[in-house]
C-alpha cells in the first residue's frame, strides 16, 4: 500500500490509501449507440487518521480502462518533462498457450486490476503528479470527470506526431544525455520484448514437461494392478507423479506476476522516449527560432549597409522592378528591428524554457532511474525466490516418489 499526502490547501494533511478493489462486467451503449461489453473497476480511496491509524472510506467510484487512458494522455500533455507511469497493456500480449488472449478472461481482468492499481499508486507516490487536480478528481468525482478533462483543452495542446518526428530528424544540437537516454530506451524496449517472448515460450515448454509426467501416474496405477509386492509402491509413486504434474499451474501463475513487472518497465521505455521527444521538439524549436533571428539580423544589416548578401524576396523584386525608396527601406528596417527585438525576447524565453525543461526532466529521470533499479532488483529477487520454491517442491515430490519406489 502506498501513501500519499494531500497537501492541497483545502485539505488537511492526511494519509490516503488507494486501491482498485473490484472488477465488474458491464454492458452499455457506446458513442455510436451500439451495445458493448466492458469491464469497470472499483476505485476506493481511504484516508487514514494519524492518531489511531484507522482508515475511513472517503471515496469510491467505478472507472473503465478508457478513462484511465484519458487521465494518462492528459498527464502526458501537461507534464512533458515527467516520465509518466504507464498503464497495463490494453490487449494481452506475450501469451503462452495456457494464457488467454481474451480481454474478458477472468485471469486477464484480474491481472489488469492489479496493473491499474499499481498505476494509481505510482501516480500517488510521484512528488509532482500526486498534486494534479485532474488526478484528484479522477479519484473523487464520478460524474462529469470526462467533461472536466476535455474542457482543459489538452488535446489541442498536444504536440502533433508529425511535428515531433520532424524535429527528431532535424534537430542539430540536442543535449547529449537525451540522445543517450533515447538510445537506452530503444534498447531497453527491444531487450525486454525479447525477454518476455522467450519467457512465454519457456513457460509453455515447462508446462509440457510437468504435464507429461502425469501420464506416469496413470500407467503406474495400471501396472500396480498386476503386481503383488511391487503394487503398493508403484501405486503411491504414481500419486506423487500426479501431484508433480498439477503443481505447475500455480508455479506459472506466480511467474506471470514477474512478467507483469517486466512489462511495466517495457512500457516505461516508451514514457522515457516521450520525454526525449519533447526535448528534441523544444530544442528544434529553439534552433529554428535562433536561425530565424539570425537571418532577420542579417537582412537588417544588409539593408542598412546596402550590401545584399542574403537572398530576400524584397531584394529580388527591387532588382526586377527597381530600387525602393529610402522611406520604404527605412520602414522595412524598422519592421525588421521590431521583429528582431521580439525574436530576441522569444529566444530568451525559449532558452529559459528549454533549460528549465532539461533541468526538471533530468531530475525526474534520475528519480525514475532509482525507482527502476530498485523495482527491477526486487523483481529479480522475487523471481529467484519463485525458482527456489519450484526446486524445493520438485525435490519434495521426487523424494516422496523415491521412497515409494524403495518400498517396491
Amino acid at each position, binding site marked *: 500500500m502506498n501513501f500519499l499526502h494531500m497537501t492541497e490547501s483545502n485539505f488537511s494533511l492526511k494519509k490516503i490509501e488507494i486501491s482498485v478493489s473490484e472488477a465488474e462486467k458491464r454492458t452499455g451503449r457506446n458513442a455510436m449507440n451500439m451495445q458493448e461489453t466492458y469491464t469497470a473497476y472499483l476505485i476506493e480511496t481511504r484516508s487514514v487518521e494519524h492518531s489511531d491509524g484507522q482508515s475511513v472510506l472517503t471515496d469510491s467510484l467505478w472507472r473503465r480502462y478508457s478513462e484511465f487512458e484519458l487521465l494518462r494522455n492528459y498527464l502526458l500533455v501537461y507534464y512533458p518533462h515527467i516520465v509518466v507511469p504507464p498503464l497495463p497493456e490494453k490487449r494481452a500480449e506475450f501469451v503462452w498457450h495456457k494464457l488467454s488472449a481474451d480481454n474478458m478472461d477472468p485471469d486477464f481482468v484480474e491481472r489488469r486490476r492489479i496493473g491499474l492499481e499499481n498505476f494509481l499508486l505510482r501516480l500517488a507516490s510521484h512528488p509532482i503528479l500526486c498534486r494534479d487536480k485532474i488526478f484528484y478528481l479522477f479519484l473523487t468525482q464520478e460524474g462529469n470527470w470526462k467533461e472536466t478533462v476535455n474542457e482543459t483543452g489538452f488535446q489541442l495542446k498536444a504536440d502533433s506526431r508529425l511535428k515531433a518526428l520532424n524535429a527528431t530528424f532535424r534537430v542539430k544540437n540536442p543535449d547529449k544525455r537525451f540522445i543517450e537516454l533515447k538510445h*537506452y530506451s530503444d*534498447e*531497453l524496449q527491444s*531487450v*525486454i520484448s*525479447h*525477454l518476455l517472448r*522467450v*519467457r512465454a*515460450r*519457456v513457460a*509453455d*515448454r*515447462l508446462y*509440457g*514437461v510437468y504435464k*507429461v*509426467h502425469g*501420464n*506416469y501416474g496413470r*500407467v503406474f496405477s*495400471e*501396472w500396480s494392478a*498386476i503386481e503383488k*509386492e*511391487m503394487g503398493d*509402491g508403484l501405486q503411491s*509413486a504414481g500419486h506423487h507423479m500426479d501431484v508433480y504434474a498439477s503443481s505447475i499451474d500455480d508455479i506459472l501463475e506466480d511467474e506471470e506476476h514477474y512478467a507483469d513487472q517486466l512489462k511495466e518497465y517495457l512500457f516505461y521505455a516508451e514514457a522515457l522516449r516521450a520525454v526525449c521527444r519533447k526535448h528534441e521538439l523544444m530544442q528544434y524549436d529553439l534552433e529554428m527560432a535562433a536561425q530565424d533571428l539570425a537571418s532577420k539580423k542579417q537582412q537588417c544589416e544588409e539593408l542598412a549597409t546596402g550590401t545584399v548578401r542574403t537572398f530576400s524576396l524584397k531584394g529580388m523584386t527591387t532588382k526586377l522592378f527597381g530600387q525602393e525608396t529610402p522611406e520604404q527601406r527605412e520602414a522595412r528596417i524598422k519592421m525588421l528591428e521590431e521583429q528582431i527585438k521580439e525574436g530576441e525576447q522569444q529566444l530568451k524565453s525559449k532558452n529559459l524554457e528549454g533549460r528549465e525543461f532539461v533541468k526538471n526532466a533530468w531530475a525526474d529521470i534520475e528519480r525514475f532511474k532509482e525507482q527502476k*533499479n*530498485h523495482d*527491477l*532488483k526486487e523483481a*529479480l*529477487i522475487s*523471481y*529467484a*525466490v519463485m*525458482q*527456489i520454491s519450484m*526446486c*524445493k517442491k*520438485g*525435490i519434495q515430490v*521426487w*523424494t516422496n*516418489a*523415491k521412497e515409494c*519406489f*524403495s518400498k*517396491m
Partner: protein
Amino acid sequence: MSGGPPKALPSTGPQSLRDMPHPLAGSSSEEAVGGDSTPSPDLLTARSFGDKDLILPNGGTPAGTASPASSSSLLNRLQLDDDVDGETRDLFVTVDDPKKHVCTMETYITYRITTKSTRVEFDLPEYSVRRRYQDFDWLRNKLEESQPTHLIPPLPEKFVVKGVVDRFSEEFVETRRKALDKFLKRITDHPVLSFNEHFNVFLTAKDLNAHKKQGMALLTRVGESVKHVAGGYKLRSRPLEFAAIGEYLDTFALKLGTIDRIAQRIIKEEIEYLVELREYGPVYSTWSALEGELAEPLEGVSACIGSCSAALEELTDDTTEDFLPVLREYILYSDSMKSVLKKRDHVQAEYEAKLEAVALRKEERPKVPADVEKCQDRMECFNADLKADMERWQNNKRQDFRQLLMGMADKNIQYYEKCLMAWESIIPLLQEKQEAK
C-alpha cells in the same frame, strides 16, 4: 544361508548334473544317454517320487513347491537361497574396456570380458578375453538351443538404424557395454545356465571363431529335437499358473511399452524446454550490458539459467542412456519368455497327445511306454525349470525396477538440487546493493 549342508551342493551339484542326463540333451556325445549313468541316490528317489505326483489329467503341477522330478529344479530351489548370500559366489564376470577395431572389411567394437572363478570347470582362476556383439549373439543362440527350458536373458538390440544412431559414439557404446555386462551377470547368477559349456567357452576360449565352427554340428541336433516338438500338437488346457504368467507378461510388456513412450515424450519436452532456456539466459546478459547498477544482478540471473540448462541436459542424457535401455531390455525379456512359454505348451501338448494315443490302445496298459515316459519327463522338467526361472525372474525384476525407478527419482532430485543451489547462491548477490543503499 551359509555353512553346513548347502555348502556341499555347489561342488557336487555341477558334477552330478554333468553326469545326469539332461532331459533334452538327447544324443550329445558329451552327455550320458538315457539312464545308463548312475545318478546320485537322492536325485533318483526324488525322480520316482515326482512321477506319481505329476500324472494329472490336465498336466498341472502342484502349486507352490517346484516339482522335485527335475534335478535342475532341485538345484534351483536350493541354490536360490545361495544366490542371496554373496559369500558362496564362485564366479565373477565383468564386461568393460570397449575398443574400436578398424579393419579393411569392417569396423567394430570389442569388449574385454574378465572372468574370475574357483569352479573346477575353469582351468585357470582368471581369464581375460575380447568379444564383440556377434559373439554375444552366438552365445545367446547357443544357450537357447541347449537350454530351451530356461529363460535366457535378452541382449541389447542387434540392429541400429544407421544415420540415426552413431554406433561408435561414446554414449551408445557405454549403454551397450552396460547391457552386455548385465546379460553376462544374469547368466552368471543362474544356477544352470552358468554351468553351460558354451558359456564356459565364451568366457575362456582364445579363439572363439574356431570354436564356433567346431561345435556347430553337434549342437544343431539338440536344436532340432526342440524344433520338432513345436509342430502339430494342440494343447488341451494350460495349467493355471502358466496361463497366469502368460497373461501377466502380456500386460507387463504393454505397460512397459507405455512407460517407454512416456519417457521418450518427457525427453522430447525437456529438450524443447532446454532449447528455449538456451535462448532465455543470454537475453539477461544482453540486458545487463545496457545497465549500470543492474548489470551484476542481471548477469547473475543469466548465469543461473545457464547452470540450470546444463543440469537439465545431464538429466535428459541420463534418462536416455540409463533409463530407456533397461525398459527396453525388459520388454525383450518378456518377449523371449513368451516364446519359452510357447515351447512349454508344445511339450505339454506332445505329451498329452501321446498319452491319449496310449490310452486308446487299451492293450498297452498298465505299463506306460518309454517314449511317453520320456515326454512326461520332458514336460515336467520344463515346467519345473520354467517355474524356478520365473520366480528368479520375478525377484530380479522387482530388484531391477526398484533400482531403475529409484535411480530415475534420484536423477530428478539431483537436477533440482543443482538448480536450487544456483538460485540460492544468487540471492545474496541480488540483495547486496540494496542494503548498501
